[in-house]
């Protein structure tokens, strides 16, 4: 009986707290449904910290345009689809007019499925699959460096280095590890290179002997090897590749942006990878790093701090551009027309891109056990392979 009483009490409690909050004219409510626990936490947690920093800064200065305060309402989706949709509904009920959705494609689609009918745009915190915007419809925006953009930059870079032939290592287990290398090969071939091999692996595979043997037996060896593998697969692969005597240069994507990679020692020497930005001294990103440290008392550990920060700055810019309107439709339309916006990680353009932004992409090289700066590139829209 105790149990029944508990259940009754508990359900009343649950139902009672669902009441929507009051709406204030001079406040912009931004919702963030993210995986604060579960497998997405490694991206969505640092994103949230970046967002909070931006919100604090803006509010301290009196709000957007000195008058619109931001209220950031964050909810944990536990990295599951069904709760993502529930949280999105709850935040909508609380008057949110722009939503930041989880890092993953299906979770974001579930969220935009809830917000779009209410004409509230959803921006994925860090999903990089470019097809997300098309699938999600007019209210779905991609934010993080799209896969095809990274592929374009890497493909062009490879051709510019004089590489003629390339091999890609892919895993069908995620769209990122499968399609990004394909985007690379498309850009590479467009720039005059030739794809001469595709080798597959499984995510979390312990041993790459079979894959490495295949590569080592290729004659002539590929001029360059490109992969979107990340930890723990990438280090394992790279070590076995080098000990098999394959010395072709290796290119990777932003999954490699982790201290583990550049502390691999000589084996990682020369690995080039893309990410959202490099904190060149004096750059906006370097300044963001200082601000972050001043605010939280710790160094920023991942680029997701900066991309989260940028997301709020992008929303701020959209509100400003709409003439300080805070309704969902106005923000959506303004977002869709943002052009050459300067943000911490570089520049971003949504105008004319069907909600998949063109952003500046940084090229990094591992040298002497450190991440070093190579270049920052903003590809021309025509050079970006279409989303699959």
């Amino acid at each position, binding site marked *: 009986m105790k149990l029944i009483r508990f259940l009754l009490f*508990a359900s009343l409690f649950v*139902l009672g707290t669902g009441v929507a909050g009051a709406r204030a004219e001079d406040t912009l409510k931004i919702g963030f449904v993210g995986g604060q*626990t579960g497998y997405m936490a490694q991206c969505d947690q640092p994103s949230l910290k970046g967002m909070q920093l931006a919100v604090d800064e803006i509010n301290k200065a009196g709000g957007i345009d000195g008058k619109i305060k931001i209220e950031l309402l964050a909810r944990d989706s536990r990295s599951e*689809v069904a709760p993502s949709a*529930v949280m999105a509904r709850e935040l909508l009920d609380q008057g949110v007019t722009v939503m930041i959705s989880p890092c993953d494609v*299906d979770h974001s689609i*579930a969220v935009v*499925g809830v917000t779009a009918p209410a004409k509230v745009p959803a921006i994925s915190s860090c999903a990089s699959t470019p097809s997300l915007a098309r699938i999600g419809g007019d209210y779905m925006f991609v934010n993080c460096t799209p896969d095809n953009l990274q592929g374009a930059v890497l493909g062009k870079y490879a051709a510019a280095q004089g590489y003629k032939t390339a091999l890609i290592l892919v895993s*069908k287990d995620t769209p990122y590890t*499968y399609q990004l290398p394909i985007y690379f090969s498309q850009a590479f071939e467009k720039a005059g290179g030739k794809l001469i091999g595709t080798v597959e692996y499984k995510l979390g595979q312990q041993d790459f002997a079979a894959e490495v043997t295949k590569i080592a037996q290729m004659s002539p060896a590929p001029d360059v090897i490109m992969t979107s593998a990340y930890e723990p697969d990438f280090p394992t692969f790279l070590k076995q590749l080098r000990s098999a005597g394959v010395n072709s240069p290796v290119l990777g994507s932003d999954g490699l942006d982790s201290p583990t990679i550049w502390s691999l020692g000589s084996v990682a020497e020369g690995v080039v990878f893309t990410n959202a930005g490099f904190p060149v001294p004096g750059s906006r990103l370097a300044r963001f790093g200082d601000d972050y440290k001043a605010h939280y008392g710790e160094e920023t550990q991942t680029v997701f701090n900066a991309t989260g920060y940028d997301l709020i700055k992008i929303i701020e810019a959209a509100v400003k551009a709409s003439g300080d309107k805070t309704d969902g439709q106005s923000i959506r339309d303004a977002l869709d027309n943002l052009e050459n916006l300067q943000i911490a990680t570089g520049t971003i353009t949504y105008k004319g891109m069907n909600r998949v932004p063109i952003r500046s992409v940084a090229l990094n090289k591992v040298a002497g056990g450190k991440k070093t700066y190579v270049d920052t590139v903003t590809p021309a829209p025509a050079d970006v392979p279409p989303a699959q």
Partner: protein
Amino acid sequence: MRSPIARSISGAAAASGLALGAALLVIALLAALMSSSSGTATVTNYMIMVVAVMALAIFSGNSGILSFGHVAFMALGAQISATLTLPAMLKASLMPNLPQAIGQAQLGFAPALLITMAVVAAVAAVTGLVIRKLAAAVAPIATLGLLIIVNSLIIGADGVTRGSQAMYGVPNAVGLWIATGAAVVATIAASLYRESSAGLSLRASREDEAAASAVGINVPAQRMLGWIWSAAVAGAAGALLAHYLTVFSPKDFFFDLTFATIVMLIVGGMGSVTGALLGTSLVTVLIEILRRLENGFSIGPIAFPQVFGFTQIGLCVLILAVLYRRPEGLLGFAEIGRLFRRRERSTNGAADAGPPAANAEHEALEVSGIRKRFGGLTAVDDVSLSLRAGEILGLIGPNGSGKTTLLGCIAGNIAADEGAIRISGRDVLGEPAYAIARSGVARNFQSIRLFSNLTALENVKVAVLQIDRAAGLREAEAKALRLLAELRIETLAQRRSGDLAYGQQRRVEIARALALDPNFLLLDEPAAGMNEAETDELLSILEWLTQRRRLGLLIVDHDMSLIMRLCHRIAVLNKGQLIALGSPAEIQASPQVREAYLGRRHARILETAIQPSKD
């Protein structure tokens, strides 16, 4: 006359199912009245989880085999149903390698659901070929393998599936009421199945596989049935989820969901449908509370900031607490239907409504030339015996002489290497234990092997149902009650058999053996551990039963006075060989028997010492 379906529905199960179904409806109504969109979404998710947990309860709850594989069936359910309902245009771009016929088809949700359940059931039928044969300790690992294989196959079949990518554009066909309807149906179905002949048989196998075979239960077949049936329900849960969320990807149907469903089942009580529903409800409510606390709250002047992770930690603490306090879950094996159960009692005692005496005058159990070797040891060596109806044959011999092995050979638990075992002229050597049990040879075990978590009545009822396949649950129950009355334990019918006193358990075991309407009964130390009064009572019951039922009884016991008093003939085994067969007087007088028991020298001494007093 009631229809066969009505006859096979248990009143208690129907009461349980209806009560739980009504509770679900009330929850849905409340959600609808609140008309908060996030509340409705939460309740809809909850209803779909109920279907998923019921699927698990049907198989794991009744078989005792924890399945990690049911989420694989959910994945297939989502995949197949979405493939059937997606618009053809979208399908062509998402899954270009689909066969033409499937690519062009665009079904409504209802037909898609039915096809999905059928296909998933077919997949279960194939995988079940492996699962049904595995020991209960190994089977969960195989189900885990199934989960991983199905996940890899869906990802690998890119083109026919979406690979690792999200499947989107699934028609939104499921809302609160369809999900609630499905949850109600699944709950009632799980309740009815649990109390049905098949469910009862599967539960008996959960308690003791060997004993289940000995009462005629075809354990692999019952497991297969539960597996297929539960897989179809899991497939439905997957289809519902896909058509509610409208988007999903293979990773959504993997370890996290497996963990979530298993937690819900275990917290409430794996052995009970009510428990499964309670667990699902409790976990859902707890998540809803914790995730609100996560957002920050204040108690008086103290304000707590927003801290994520409460929900997961809270859930883990709940699981640990429940498993520490109640290892079998909150409800264990109890069902809500018990509360409504009429206190029905058979009014007729054993005397007036006795069973028909078996027409067994011409029946005989013949054992000829049985031989069984274990490695180099010949445990049973060329033994031939015969047992007639109405006869009590004692089987004695020193420890290790092969008595229990011989019993096992006859009952089919142990495969004899050579020889023949004829039941009324038919050779049954090599048939499985359950088949021999159904041909009229019942047995008990040296140590008591009741289905402990089943009531005394259920223990007997499940055996009745094996032999009398056409009987309805009520008829079976009436017959089981009569048998309990015959053994004078009808007042204990509703007690959990594991809670009974030793002597009472022995009687339940005998009643269970008699439920098979056997012509022959093999009793392995039926009086072991009984005090003198209990033994005397047992003896009179056995004597009375053989006279009344004309059973042939084969009794193994070390209690010489019991054997001498009870048996018409006695067979003596030593080192696997039959060394003597005759009346109690003949056996007592046999020098070989004494030698076997005491060794040659002592036998001589004893012979001279007791010979005079014998006369």
